[in-house]
C-alpha cells in the first residue's frame, strides 16, 4: 500500500478522515457525499485527498442529469413541447428528447446551461423563435418585464416597484 505523506511536513503520520459535504446543482436536489481529508498528527495540517475529485465528479454527473430532466419536465409542463423547443433553438430533431430520455447520455455543460437559462426565462424561446432579431427581442423582454411588475404589484401592493419609465 502506498504510504500517505503529509504535503506540508512530509511525515507519514497522516490519517484519513471521512467528511460529509453537500453538493447541489440548479434545478436538482442537493446530495450529501463523503469525501476524505488527510490530517497529519505531526503538524496538524489538513488537506484535500486526491481521490475526492472522482467521487465529486461522479455525483455531479448524476445531479446534472436530474437537473436536465427536471428542467425539461417543467418546460413541457408549461406547454413548451420538445419539438417546438428544438425548432426554435435550431437543434437537430430529437436532440432534447435524447437529453431527457436516454439514461446513458450525459448532456454537455453548454446544453445544460442553455436549458437552465430557458427554464429561468422561458420567454427566451420566443426570442429564439424571432431569430434573435434585436427589436423583437427587446419588445419580448419589455412585455415580460411589464407583466412581472404587474404581478409583483398585484401580489404585494405595499412593495414599491422601480419605475422603469425613468431613465437610468
Amino acid at each position, binding site marked *: 500500500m502506498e504510504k500517505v505523506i503529509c504535503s506540508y*511536513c512530509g511525515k507519514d503520520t497522516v490519517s484519513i478522515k471521512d467528511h460529509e459535504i453537500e453538493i447541489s446543482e440548479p434545478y436538482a436536489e442537493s446530495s450529501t457525499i463523503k469525501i476524505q481529508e488527510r490530517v497529519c498528527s*505531526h503538524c496538524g495540517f489538513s488537506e484535500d485527498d486526491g481521490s475526492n475529485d472522482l467521487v465529486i465528479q461522479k455525483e455531479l454527473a448524476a445531479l446534472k442529469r436530474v437537473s436536465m430532466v427536471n428542467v425539461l419536465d417543467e418546460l413541457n409542463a408549461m406547454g413548451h413541447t420538445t419539438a417546438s423547443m428544438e425548432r426554435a433553438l435550431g437543434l437537430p430533431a430529437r436532440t432534447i428528447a435524447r437529453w431527457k430520455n436516454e439514461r446513458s447520455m450525459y448532456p454537455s455543460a453548454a446544453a445544460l446551461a442553455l436549458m437552465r437559462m430557458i427554464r429561468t426565462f422561458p420567454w427566451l424561446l420566443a426570442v429564439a423563435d424571432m431569430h434573435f432579431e434585436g427589436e423583437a427581442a427587446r419588445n419580448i423582454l419589455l412585455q415580460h418585464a411589464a407583466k412581472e411588475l404587474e404581478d409583483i404589484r398585484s401580489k404585494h401592493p405595499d412593495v414599491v416597484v422601480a419605475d422603469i419609465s425613468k431613465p437610468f
Partner: protein
Amino acid sequence: MPKPQPEYDIKDFLRACKGNGRQPSNVVLMGGVLETAASHFSLKTKEAILAFINAGGLEDLEFVNSIEYRRSFEVPPPVCDAYHFKSGFSVGNISFFFSESNRKWIIKSFHRDDACGPTIMEFALRKAGSLPACFEGSE
C-alpha cells in the same frame, strides 16, 4: 505584522497551477478550501479550481497582505500571500504559501470576499436598477 509586499512572485504560483504535463500538480488544497470554492464560486473539484486559475479566472489580482502561517511547525514559519480577485459578479480572496520543506504550493483559502467593494458589473447593474437583491448592501 503583515508585510506590505508579496512574499512570492504570483507568476510562480500561477505557473505551478498550470502543472507540468504528466507530472502530478504540486499544488495542494488545504482542508475546507474545496467547500468554499464550491459554495462561493461553483468550482466543485480541485481540477475545476486549477482549470479556472489556468484560464485566467483570477481577474484584477490585487495584493492584500503577507502574513505568517500561524499553525506552522516550521521555524521561521512560511509566509502566506493574500490577494483579492474579481470574477464576474464576485470579488474573491485567495491566499497561498509555498512549503519549502515539501516544495509544494498550498492554497490556504479561496472564498468570496464580501468585505470588498462592488465590482464594475455591480455598479452598472445598480445604476440600471437591476441589481439582484442578494447583491444589495455589498458596498
